[in-house]
């Protein structure tokens, strides 16, 4: 194994916090759970006394509901715009409840039923015939046997027949293996459950059948509501990302405010002052705001060799967030002509943004 990785799983990254919570945990635990529901809640929402950081922000009740959903028969389905930390929440829950966040199926058009049930080591299969040794369990089957949480990312990207396989799996909580004999089956140990994430609005996804929907409790993860908080979060993320860059990563306050305002205005379809703004179809999430600001900082640092300005943000906005949808281009133009232009009168950052966006627009 390589010592250094880009990204460690949650149970490794927060090993200390999980240990502290387990040590202090005296509340009753549901069968198979590594921590009590209250400790899981503290792991995600933070507990200053135990030195546990807050990892998910904005909607405590959603976390409560998610935990309680996982205690029951229903799976948990996290939906919402991309970039709203659905996957992170699913990873944290899996790590805290089942002790492992790595039993994961990445949904895609290439996923087949075997990825949800089991496959075979064909060399062994040919040599020995069907045996437990020759069987390759799916992450789902492993989670069932060990009583852990299985995660399915982007469930709606799986073909409908693969989604259908989930239905009986979730209601029976059993996987039969006819190859090993008529009686061969694996029944889920206590603690097993499924967290799926899905994008219901993107293009190229498959609709979920209502039978499958019935087996999940749905939670919509919304973008962060509080502007001040979103700003702090973006600032922290930028510091983290710029840490290993060779150029200085300074984000002036005024430019950061601009980034936050642009993304919030376009996401909500209105400014703080109440002026209406056309909402683009592109995703205007906090994560995209971080991407845009990050790209602007890199462009300023590596290409221009100066501090990042509103102009850098404007130039990155189209490529990073807007992905060149002509309809969205119109909306950005409308935003620039009406909102940014007015703000440009009193703010140099907005003036630079307006000018650059206008030039960029004219260049097309």
């Amino acid at each position: 194994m390589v010592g250094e990785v880009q990204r460690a799983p949650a149970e490794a990254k927060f090993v200390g916090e999980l240990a502290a919570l387990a040590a202090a945990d005296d509340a009753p635990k549901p069968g198979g759970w590594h921590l009590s529901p209250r400790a899981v809640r503290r792991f995600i929402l933070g507990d200053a006394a135990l030195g546990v950081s807050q990892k998910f922000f904005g909607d405590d009740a959603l976390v409560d509901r998610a935990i309680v959903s996982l205690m029951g028969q229903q799976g948990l389905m996290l939906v919402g715009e991309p970039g709203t930390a659905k996957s992170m929440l699913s990873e944290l829950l899996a790590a805290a409840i089942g002790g492992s966040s790595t039993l994961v199926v990445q949904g895609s058009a290439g996923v087949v039923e075997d990825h949800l049930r089991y496959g075979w080591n064909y060399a062994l299969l040919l040599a020995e015939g069907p045996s437990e040794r020759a069987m390759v369990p799916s992450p789902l089957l492993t989670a069932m046997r060990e009583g852990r949480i299985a995660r399915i990312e982007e469930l709606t990207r799986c073909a409908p027949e693969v989604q259908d396989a989930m239905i009986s799996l979730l209601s029976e909580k059993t996987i039969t293996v006819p190859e090993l004999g008529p009686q061969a089956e694996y029944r889920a140990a206590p603690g097993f459950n499924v967290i799926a994430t899905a994008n219901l609005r993107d293009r190229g996804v498959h609709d979920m059948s209502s039978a499958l929907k019935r087996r999940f409790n749905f939670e919509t993860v919304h973008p962060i509501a509080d502007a001040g908080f979103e700003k702090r979060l973006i600032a922290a993320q930028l510091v983290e990302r710029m840490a290993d860059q060779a150029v200085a990563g300074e984000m002036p306050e005024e430019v950061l405010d601009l980034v936050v305002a642009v993304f919030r205005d376009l996401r909500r379809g209105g400014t703080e002052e109440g002026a209406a703004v056309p909402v683009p179809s592109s995703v205007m999430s906090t994560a995209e705001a971080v991407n845009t600001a990050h790209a602007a900082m890199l462009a300023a640092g590596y290409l221009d060799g100066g501090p990042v300005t509103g102009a850098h943000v404007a130039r990155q906005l189209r490529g990073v967030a807007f992905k060149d949808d002509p309809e969205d281009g119109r909306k950005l133009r409308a935003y620039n002509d009406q909102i940014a232009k007015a703000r440009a009168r009193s703010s140099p950052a907005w003036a630079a943004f307006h000018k650059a966006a206008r030039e960029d627009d004219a260049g097309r």
Partner: protein
Amino acid sequence: MQDAEAFRPALFQPERGLWIAPIRHHSPACAWAVRAMIRELRPAQVLIEGPADATPLIERLLDPRCRPPVAMVNLHQGRSAYAPFCAHSPEYVAMHAAQEMGAGLRFIDLPADRLFGRDLPDTGPIPMADEQVFDEGDYVAALCARTGCRDGFELWDHLFEARLGTGDWRSFLTDVGAYCAGLRAATPEARIAARGDTAREVTMAGHIAAALQQGSVVAVVGGFHAPALTDPSGSASKTPQMRDSYLIRYGHAAMDALAGYGAGLPQPGFYDALWQAAETSGGTPDWRVLAGELVQDFTQAMSARGHPVALPAKVEALRMAETLAGLRGRAAILRHDLFDGVQAALTKGEVSVREPWAERLRRHWRGTALGELPAGISAPLLVEDARARAAAHRLAVADTLEKRRSLDIHRKPRHLAASRFLHAMALLDTGFGRMEAGPDYVSGVGTDRLFEEWAYAWLPAVETRLIELAAEGRGETVPAAAMAQLWAQRDSADPALNLALLARGIRAGLGARLVPFAQAFARDMAQSGGFAEIAAALQRLYGLVHTRGPMRPPDELDLAGLLQVGFARLIYLADALPQLPEDMVAKAVAALRLTADLLASDGEGRFDRQMFDDAMARLADVRAAPEITGAALALALRAGQLPAARLVAALRGHFLGAALEVEDRIGVLSGMIATVPDLLWQVPEVLETVDVFLVTLDEADFLTLLPSLRRALAALNPRETDRLADVLARRHGARPDPLVAGPFTEADLALGLAAQAAVLAALRADGLAEEEEEVGA
């Protein structure tokens, strides 16, 4: 509650005979404790926070025929303040307990007038009790963070409603007292004074001190005031005569709305169920059973509305609610747990802003109860208000005879006020007045008239209509009801209608009340409506902004801002014109002309012309219906954005091009004529191109194109037609003569007369000539 030990007000002072019951309005748990307290203590007097001058209403409230929810309402110059009572209101329960124990009863707060002295927002009802402190501030936020509650409401339920029905009123009220002392300690003194609380507390303390002279006292007061009343002194201030205070039927729905203004707990339907459950069990409700009943009741109501809920989903909702309550460390399954349970179990899909199931539950728990009052007590407020206003405007309402009145609305403010009232009554469809002559600013007819002539009569139908409006909850005053009427008629997708409504509102003198309506209009306009509709609305709006006199819009409406919103939307939509369906092209071209004219007449620079010019230049560059391209090219050319050669090239391209529809060949031309016809004679190349095209057309093509050509040229006004004829005539070397098309001969005349005689004969033969004869006779 150990931390609150530091401020624990001395609520119970048996040695003085004083007991203070700190409450939160509409809290069943408080009601339960207060009743137990009064029954046990049997005080000589029960004093209640409420306008002292409204004390006579207590007797009516206790009338056995009165069933809550009812409300005390106080009227003052067209505004009304409400104090609702429902079955689980601590004050109402205390009144009944006091009556049962034979105690004296009275209200001890400042007289109702104080409610109107403050700086009030201009819209919405005024709650007599203001409890915003329960839901905001550092103390609530800190306690929320510690208990994991999301807001002040959940915190209150978690700390107190969960204890509904417990027998120990002493410890319950002590804890409420400590909580409220904490709230108060975290509220700056300046804010308390600014809210006008200091004066109220002095008054209440005086009343309590005076009452203590006559025996033991239980004082039921808002928890926030309790700490200031533990050592009452002074004397009871003189209470004025009750005036303009009434008892009215009230509803849970209205109570819920009032909660939005910071008074009491929202969703009375839910708290009523808690109260009933406690009453039935004679103590703490069985929370699990209650939760089951509440979920069942809700899902049944939803099934009846076409949202059936399967049994497993109900079970899951209940399991979620119960487990959540456990996770949050409470025995009682409360409002937020049930909300979360219902939301988690019933929602299947992604939700945007408001979760539909939570929203349905919210609506369900708003409650449906309507109070009852014996006849003779209830005053239909809207009727009284309309009568009072009519009298104030010197409109006779004593009988039902029709009367006339001429109003000089331009010069006499009193006449204008009367006219506004009459317009408001017309807006309400009361049939009270009928304007027989006068300017109609809404449709723009006769705006030069100076007087309005009205006929009016206070018929029984007027009163019936007003009662009907009051029953629909449209408001207690004529302006409030007129405003509600505007909201009810509004259609967010129809800018023309909304603008007309706004104009009617201005005409009815609704003034600043229209601000939210105008804002909603701005939001609608920013999001919906087609190019043509917005252009038309913009033109009328521009007219409205510049209206002076009686129709002058109040400055608060910021119609100039509205213009900007509409204009921005128009520019945005202009870029979508290439995708416009064919049947809407003609309207869009007309709208472009309208907009161009509007911009031309905009002398004060309200609009950013450049934005429109840029949009036209962009539009001219993309592929669109030929009429639109023609219009855009013409407008861009006039604005100097493009050279004339571009327009000429487009004209020629279409004339000579291979068009599927013949009319398309002259599409660019008709688009140009419809928007900037002067180009025809001002830019020689344009005329040249058109002329050459027409001259070189062969007869058959000309005949095919003729109808479309005529239609296109019909857009010219007579002056423009003249001008064009003149230029064309000069071009072809003829002398333009407007009168004579050519010389007549005598033979021509004879031919004409013979033709007329033949036609007349034919008409007569067919029996169609009667008219002709009559005309002749």
